[in-house]
């Protein structure tokens, strides 16, 4: 029996969220005394993994798996899981992980619990905490199937370095090729994605129009941050839907969330509640966002944001 961790990579770079999954698995292994096995698909830079303590790495290299396909990946991971009798499968909360996990759960007759924010508070029965009601609440959930898949909410466990000298194996694999074909992938190269960002700079209707977004983008560039927006802004077409943060958009669990000219509707606040540090910049001191933020500036965004950007640049120049 073992704990299997699916490691996601992008052009030979392992994703930070996968290091977090591995950190979770290592902590779990101390509670239930099982080996931690990492499974990686088409990634040749495996060295960083050994900082997070896997006992074994199963490294799969297969041309047919070059492009992510949830059906194919679920089939491969299912076969690997069976070969190592994995009872616990740990993945991140990324779009692709959640996509493949529901398929995987049927293949393995496993329970799949998403948005997990804690180690189990009991292992028999197995109980974990997850976020629910779009981050407005948490719940304890008991898993009563023999095999379980847990997807770990970003930044909930953090990274925990733990050096190891894993055995690396390269197995032959078989899988049934899916009939779903990827025709094209369009990714904006120069921009940081909300999912990967440690800092998110978000703006709302207070910016008055899409032509004013340059101050938001400049600040994001300085902080190597992703840009995001409130619901009305995406509904009016000022910004793409992929930037909409909130209950019907996407949740943001980042280290630093800066909200500019966003009043803070309950749906938006739910979406950002799991971000660690929140800064609000708004000219209305009554804006609900001030009730949930850590730091606040009451002032005109058009004056404050460019000034803050200049000060941050000076700070970075001094500290580098």
């Amino acid at each position, binding site marked *: 029996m073992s704990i299997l961790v699916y490691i996601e990579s992008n052009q030979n770079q392992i994703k930070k969220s996968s290091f977090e999954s591995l950190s979770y698995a290592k902590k779990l292994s101390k509670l239930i005394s099982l080996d931690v096995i990492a499974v990686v698909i088409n990634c040749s830079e495996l060295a960083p993994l050994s900082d997070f303590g896997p006992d074994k790495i199963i490294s799969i290299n297969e041309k047919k798996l070059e492009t992510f396909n949830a059906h194919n990946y679920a089939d491969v991971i299912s076969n690997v899981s069976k070969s190592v009798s994995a009872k616990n499968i740990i993945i991140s909360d990324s779009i692709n992980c959640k*996509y493949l996990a529901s398929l995987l759960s049927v*293949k393995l007759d496993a329970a799949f619990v998403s948005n997990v924010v804690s180690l189990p508070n009991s292992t028999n029965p197995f109980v974990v905490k997850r976020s629910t009601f779009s981050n407005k609440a948490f719940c304890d959930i008991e898993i009563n199937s023999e095999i379980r898949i847990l997807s770990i909410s970003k930044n909930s466990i953090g990274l925990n370095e733990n050096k190891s000298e894993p055995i690396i194996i390269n197995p032959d694999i078989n899988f049934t090729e899916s009939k779903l074909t*990827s*025709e094209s992938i369009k990714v904006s190269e120069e921009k940081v994605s909300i999912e990967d960002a440690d800092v998110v700079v978000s703006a709302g209707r207070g910016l008055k129009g899409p032509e004013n977004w340059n101050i938001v983008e400049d600040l994001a560039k300085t902080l190597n941050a992703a840009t995001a927006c409130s619901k009305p802004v995406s509904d009016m077409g000022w910004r793409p839907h992929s930037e909409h943060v909130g209950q019907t958009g996407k949740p943001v669990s980042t280290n630093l969330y800066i909200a500019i000219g966003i009043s803070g509707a309950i749906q938006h606040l739910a979406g950002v509640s799991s971000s660690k540090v929140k800064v609000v910049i708004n000219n209305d001191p009554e804006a609900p966002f001030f009730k949930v933020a850590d*730091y606040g*500036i009451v002032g005109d965004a058009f004056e*404050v944001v460019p000034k803050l950007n200049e000060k941050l640049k000076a700070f970075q120049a001094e500290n580098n």
Partner: protein
Amino acid sequence: MKILVCISCVPDTTSKINFKNNDTEFDNSQIQYIINPNDEFGLTRAVWFKENDGAEIDVVSVGLDNNDQILRKALAIGADSAFRINQEALDSFQVAKLLSAHISNNNYDLVIAGRESIDYNGGMVPGIIAEILNFNYVTNCVGLEITDSSAEIKREIEGGVETLTCKLPLIIGAQKGLVEESDLKIPNMRGIMQARQKPFEIIQGKTEETKTKTFKFEKPESNKEIKLVSPDNLDELIQYLHNEAKVI
């Protein structure tokens, strides 16, 4: 083309979430229920296929009779027939099994569910159905075109969009972007009147096993006091973020 839209009945997005009975149950007093927003984006796309290609739309929900009002709303928006599977929804696995049984009895070309419900946020029902019934599956779906029996699907990926193609049958997890918010339909009086004449069937459904049990809720801790910084003293904010919060 025969389409099924799976609908989940969820608290209105503006709801304040509270719990009762020693935090073991959701407090549904003063809660307005709505069609799960991700499902509504899917339903709206289905109605487009009906109006433009003559598709036929069924809607289905797993739950007790308090789900009837949202199924009636779906009929008023444009669905042709409604089904309610009369079992209390307990976990995603159980709901997906019940829906799979309904789908395999009815030969749908396209099944639409939401990417996730905004209450439970499991995000796994359509995937489980896809695997049980051997359907092609795409979630985080932000575009769907169908010509004859071929589908072209756009799905949101981190930082971009992927375009995929496949033959029907297909199941998708819909989300905002599949249709615009402004395309969502508010039922008019004619739609509401017509809905009363449309078929509405209650299916008993089997007792399916569950794999999980949610038994205790809590709300996030309320935040500590905010620190206000004067717009004339932004260096102070930078110092807080660097020394105290340690995020820059």
